[in-house]
């Protein structure tokens, strides 16, 4: 039975399930490195998921859908940035408001445009990479390697590129150095002439874009439809992945893969095991809680994360 569950197909599906978590988690890395907490990732994913499907179906082109999801993510990021950075309002509350807004606005437009609460994707993204050889044409190993590494949606490859780029940007460029300093000790960065407001805006908008992209993957690639509340807490699980990954891109990717594995497992176990499906459905959420507990004392957040920057002492 185990052989049925843990095969190349399973690993590939773990990767696919991990992508939305990884992308949103990376968004979390950017904002928290800059000192802004963004629990609105959940709503940004949801809105991205809806926008991707809606625009894809209207434009009859999934790439336009992906782009629109990114833009909508940036728009929600802008709201969060204005509220938290310009007006210095409570970052958690602003994030909650964005989640509420997303829950309402997606269904609102879903009703308005399609007259229902669930819409199917009409135009799918292509699969890039090597084509799958038929069984017998190649060895099982070759076939498995292709399944795992070279037979995916373009967004999977894009995600890998984004992660490599993010690592370089954060650790090797002046922008990254400034980003890290702004989230650790903004007063110090300010005295060195770093524009804190600008850095934080860029970071929050980036997180919006990544969460929007994450949502588009979720609806276009993973589900092939949009449905009410389909983000299913992924924005928060992504934050758990970010914490477990110690606020680094690669750490977050690793943690996202762990979650992807958990979720793929829960999908795979349905119907196979004797455990009621409801308990299997709890796996990703329980995993997130355990991961957070195990990260305690090990993962230290950026010191100024969640604290609005006040220049004048009052």
């Amino acid at each position, binding site marked *: 039975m185990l052989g049925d569950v843990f095969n190349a197909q399973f690993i590939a599906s773990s990767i696919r399930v991990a992508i939305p978590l990884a992308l949103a988690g990376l968004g979390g890395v950017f904002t928290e490195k800059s000192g802004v907490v963004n629990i609105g990732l959940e709503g940004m994913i949801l809105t991205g998921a809806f926008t991707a499907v809606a625009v894809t179906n209207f434009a009859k082109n999934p790439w336009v859908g992906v782009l629109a999801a990114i833009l909508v993510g940036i728009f929600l990021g802008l709201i969060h940035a204005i509220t938290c950075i310009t007006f210095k309002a409570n970052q958690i509350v602003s994030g909650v408001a964005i989640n509420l807004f997303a829950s309402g606005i997606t269904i609102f437009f879903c009703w308005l445009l399609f007259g229902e609460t669930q819409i199917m994707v009409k135009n799918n993204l292509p699969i890039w990479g090597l084509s799958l050889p038929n069984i017998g044409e190649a060895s099982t190993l070759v076939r498995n390697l292709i399944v795992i590494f070279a037979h995916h949606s373009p967004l999977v490859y894009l995600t890998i590129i984004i992660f490599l780029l993010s690592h370089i940007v954060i650790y*090797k460029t*002046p922008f990254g*150095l*400034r980003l890290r300093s702004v989230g*650790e000790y903004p007063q110090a960065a300010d005295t*060195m002439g770093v524009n804190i407001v600008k850095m934080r805006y860029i970071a929050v908008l980036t997180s919006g874009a990544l969460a929007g992209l994450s949502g588009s993957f979720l609806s276009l690639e993973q589900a092939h439809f949009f449905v009410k509340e389909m983000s299913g807490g992924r924005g928060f699980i992504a934050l758990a992945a970010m914490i477990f990954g110690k606020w680094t891109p690669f750490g977050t990717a690793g943690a996202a893969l762990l979650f992807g594995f958990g979720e793929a497992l829960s999908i795979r176990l349905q119907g196979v095991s004797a455990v009621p499906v409801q308990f299997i459905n709890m796996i990703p959420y329980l995993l997130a809680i355990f991961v957070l507990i195990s990260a305690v004392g090990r993962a230290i957040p950026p010191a100024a994360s969640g604290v609005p920057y006040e*220049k004048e002492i009052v």
Partner: protein
Amino acid sequence: MPEIALEMKNITKRFPLVVANDKVNFSVYKGEIHALVGENGAGKSTLMSILYGLYQADSGEIFINGKKANISNPNIAIHLKIGMVHQHFMLVPPLTVAENIILGMEPRKNHFFIDMEKAIKKVEELSESMGFKIDPEAKIENVSVGIQQRVEIIKVLFRGAEILIMDEPTAVLTPQEVEELFEILRSLKKQGKTIIFITHKLNEVKDLSDRVTVMRRGQVVGVKNIKDTNQEEIASMMVGRKVIFKVEKKPLNLGKVTLKVEKLEALNNKGLPAVKDISFEIKEGEILGFAGVEGNGQTELVEVITGLRPASSGKIFLNNRDITNDSPRSIREDKIAHIPEDRRRRGIISDYTVAENLILGSHYLSPFNKGLSLNFAVINNHANHLIKIFDIRPSDKDNLLKSLSGGNQQKVIVARELYGEPKLLVAAQPTRGLDVGSIEFVYQQILNERDKGKAILLISADLEEILSLADRIAVIYEGKIVNILDPKKTNEKEIGLLMTGSTKNKELLKVK
């Protein structure tokens, strides 16, 4: 007439509760070391923050090398070759020395990337030009305070600063480190740099500077050549009256042992040993002062005694009863009072009223708590009573504590802690950041308790304070008591040497 490097005219800056700078005029010659002195809250730091573009003045003008400058942010100040070393270091702890130095002005390669090799080379060059070595790849969180200050100076020079503002640079240094800093500053003066040196320690002014500007309550009260003045004159300009303080102490009248600490050990927040094998006693009617550079285990020691941090080994006895690792509440009930070093973070709840703060710690006891609910009639009477006795201003019990001045916040703490007639008073940095009037008040209260036969543990970074109040002085270095001295038979120099662990005398190391 020497060339004027910088001139500030009619600078005014208001904050919600105070006028920090009131029509201030300030000018500095090229190539001089200019001391800017005044008490806490006199407006020195605000004036320099305006010069550096961190604050905008409400009115007034700034001229750099004779040209009018509009310094609306630090970038402009940096561009004008002004650099500032802040009192609280502006360094990012998890970043390296080199990363901190280049932040905001990173050397680049291939346009997009940081050129780390170049950065490291430049850092080494600058440090060597001032006669010391530094590891550019060490993380800031792992180097000493003295080194961090050097990083700050290099950071400023890296940006090509000609005018250096040093904001109370000696506050965190040992006497020996202060000497080394002065050497660095003198070598910078030789290189032709202009240095503004903010301090309230007058002996430093005399040792180092060419001229001095004195501020009081947001205004400039005088500018003097060091040659033409003396410490007494500057002191009276600073405080607006002749005498600073002279502490009158009654003769020592010792009673039984109140606090006994035996071989105490404790860890700091990073899990490293911070209190190492500390033993001492305090008797009734005695003040035991702990002298030492901050961060040598004083904070942790106080927290262990007051139950806020667990002891990893050793014992604490109050009147011969073991109270080691009791809860903070139980220790309060045993009548140990605590004036905490971090007033705003630990000592008060700034969103609670004066009345509510005055019952913190006894809020659950009768008569404040009766039956199911709090008894507000009693709580309010209690507040009005203490406000009158301790002269807390403004005298409204319903004011939120955050609207009070630092001195009055401290009065609230002192009133609350002394109200319960403690057996032991633990006072950590009790006068930090207070004005002269409040300092006198706090000294008086501490001495009153001593004369009433209470045991007092005093921790202070201010050697003068320790020397004038304590009956015995324990010197602490790296978590250990190096020696316990009689204040009448010692001096700042000896304590300073012990504080840095630089004594080689085996006799001195023996703990009495």
